[in-house]
């Protein structure tokens, strides 16, 4: 009997071809659009979170408790090897990066600006977050004698620096003596994180340690954790192991990112709701009319003894087919768009300044997640169900005999 209902539903659908195609197109096009936006938004946020984790925070960062407010070398992590030894006992930590940072002044012959100098190990940063991929000009190198530096793109632009340009960095060392050191620029990086791009110069750890007159010291140790689920657990473990330190997750360091993600999710959900409530209205229109104009036919079917269940199934199936085909076409189309956008990206270079305010690159790379399609499926499914409630009620109410006698038409 289900088979007959399916057969009837399928046939009815194609009997009213234009109508069905319109509904399917409606579902498919709006769905692919929604999927595309969702992917783009998600891509945007994931990208921001990713680069932040890769370029700075890791999943977890360690500081001394006072450092983040005062940014003073008095609050340094030391000795580093002791902390590293403790870290090595936690197997969930797949890599870590030790960084030593100091605020100071960067100067050229023309201009000077406030900036941060940060000592790192290139190899470790590469392991840590592929920092080399952020280089837009020049090389990922500190030169043979570690006398070269990597500089943020915005800072380089403000100072009119090129590869090979010479800069002098002036800062107070650990003994509050003012020292100056010169570097040549070997590479320019762009992470999308304004704190790095606008204010930071990376130099070798050895060089800065000597410059600041420090040994075995760091201001931040950032950690990469294998699995997202382990982050909180590792944080707790670290807290008990190193109670004197501040141990912060990336989302605690950059709460704005999480908030943006939440906002985007709410926005996506709202978009889905608006679109599919309207879409349900469209499906409803079609289903209602298709029931109304076939009331007589349905009555006859009921009259000759067709069970109500079968008639109901037929209508449900008709709507389901519409929804399902719409979903499949839309999902396919959306997938193709997403695939394109995740491979080639969306070029928004004309709004570069605006995007940078959000800490984004001008070319947005979309994300593709399995759950988009599940979510979309449920949206379509509910819209479809919603749209047949009223037509089914009408059908339930009819007395076959009245329709046959023409009393309801």
């Amino acid at each position, binding site marked *: 009997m289900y088979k007959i209902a399916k057969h009837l539903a399928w046939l009815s659908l194609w009997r009213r071809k234009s109508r069905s195609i319109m509904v399917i197109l*409606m579902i498919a096009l709006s769905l692919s659009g929604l999927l595309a936006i969702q992917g783009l938004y998600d891509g945007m946020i994931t990208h921001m979170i990713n680069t932040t984790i890769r370029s700075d925070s890791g999943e977890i960062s360690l500081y001394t408790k006072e450092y983040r407010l005062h940014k003073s070398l008095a609050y340094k992590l030391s000795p580093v090897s002791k902390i590293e030894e403790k870290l090595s006992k936690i197997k969930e930590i797949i890599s870590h990066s030790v960084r030593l940072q100091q605020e100071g002044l960067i100067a050229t012959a023309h201009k000077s600006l406030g900036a941060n100098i940060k000592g790192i190990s290139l190899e470790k940063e590469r392991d840590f977050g592929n920092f080399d991929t952020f280089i837009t000009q020049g090389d990922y190198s500190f030169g043979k004698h570690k006398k070269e530096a990597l500089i943020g793109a915005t800072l380089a632009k403000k100072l009119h620096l090129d590869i090979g340009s010479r800069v002098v960095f002036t800062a107070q060392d650990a003994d509050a003596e003012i020292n100056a050191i010169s570097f040549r620029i070997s590479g320019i990086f762009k992470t999308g994180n304004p704190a790095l791009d606008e204010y930071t110069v990376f130099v070798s750890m050895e060089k800065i340690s000597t410059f600041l007159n420090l040994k075995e010291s760091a201001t931040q140790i950032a950690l990469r954790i294998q699995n997202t689920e382990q982050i909180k657990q590792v944080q707790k473990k670290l807290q008990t192991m190193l109670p004197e330190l501040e141990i912060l997750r990336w989302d605690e360091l950059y709460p704005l990112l999480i*908030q943006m993600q939440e906002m985007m999710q709410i926005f996506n959900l709202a978009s889905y709701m*608006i679109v599919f409530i309207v879409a349900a*209205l*469209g499906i409803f229109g*079609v289903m209602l009319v298709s029931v109304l104009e076939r009331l007589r036919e349905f009555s006859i079917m009921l009259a000759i003894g067709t069970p109500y269940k079968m008639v109901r199934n037929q209508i449900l199936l008709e709507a389901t087919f519409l929804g399902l085909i719409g979903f499949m076409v839309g999902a396919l189309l959306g997938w193709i768009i997403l695939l394109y956008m995740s491979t080639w990206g969306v070029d928004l270079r004309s709004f570069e300044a*605006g995007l940078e*305010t959000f800490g984004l690159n001008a070319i947005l790379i979309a994300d593709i997640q399995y759950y988009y399609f599940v979510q979309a499926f449920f949206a379509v499914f509910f819209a479809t169900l919603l749209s047949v409630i009223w037509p089914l009620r009408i059908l339930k109410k009819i007395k076959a005999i009245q329709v046959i006698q023409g009393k309801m038409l």
Partner: protein
Amino acid sequence: MRFTLALKNILKSKGRSLTTLLLSLFTTTLFIVYVAFMDGSHHQIIKSSVEIYTGYAHVNLKGYRDESDYGNLIEDASSIDEILRNDTSIKTYAPRFETYALLSGDEKSVGSMIVGIIPSKEEKLSKLASSLSKGEYLNDNDTNAIYIGIKLAERLKITIGSQIAMVGSSIDYSIAADIFTVKGIFKTGLFDFDAQSAFVNKSYLDSVILSDNKATYFTVDFQNNDHINKVTSALQAKLPSQYEAVGWDSLLSSLVQAMLVDSIFGYISISIFFLVIFFVVMIFSYVNIYTRTREIGLLRALGLTSKDIFIILFIEILLLATVAVSIGAIIGGVIAHHYELQPIVIDGIAEMYKDYGLVSDEVPMHFDLFTITWNALTIFILNLLAIVYPALKINKLTATEAMRYV
């Protein structure tokens, strides 16, 4: 004849007309409200950023934007003051004197921006007074009282009543130094601003850095700040040629671009809404027209051409859409207007967006006749377009086919 027929069709089949009417009405209202909400929240963000400190427009010497030093001061502030005072398009304005100086507490010294302001005027122009977090805001008779950002206070390790020394340079480049007592601490939520600015009464600062009758710029609040380019260029025309009036959109250009990016995403979403609405209207038109197949067949049989039928259907949708969209626009407009005056309050949104400088939980809608007009027109045109396909489709049927249509 065709018109009467169309009108009669509308009036006779009330249910059908009502559905179409309601659908268009609903979509128009929805769309207008959505756009008003989006624009409203952008306005709110911009308004917050603008109103925390920057202001809607600045009047400064040409060249000051590039080189904000003592070489580009407004040397005769009273002449500018007079021009601004006599400009009826301006609600309030005030001169400011921004300079960089070394502030030092007992332990630490920090380079910071010091601004001479007229406290009573600034209260109306910016959020400085309302951002008070501890102590008191300045008044016009204050002498060496200073009002500083909360992060700056933390950096200097000082609090209300502490003394801080300022060392900077006077405008003749002699050294300017004075001791100030912390009168108030403010918190706007903008980290950099809270960490790097301090305010003192301008008349007193003038005596310290010899800037009497001088200003780095005037900040201006117009009666109507909506069309900032127009009002600033009008103001520009009244200013001596060496001065310029700069609107907030240039002062905060990256914020403007950020809003633009956000709007683009908003419009992508809207275009999806459009797509759905278009299809729904089309489906309803299609269904409406098809339930009338037999009737249309009869008309054709009676000798009307397919063009006549098309025109009748078109007149019908034209009438319905006009009524629906007008009512929808009015309802949408009323909602937008209402929520502009009494903004929706979303608790915690200010906290969430504090890094963007949003200082209020209120999200007003933005009521703008032009926007509402184009929104309504879009839906109207969408309605008209939506009927084209169904009408053409039905006209393909011959009269007899149409009459036999089940």
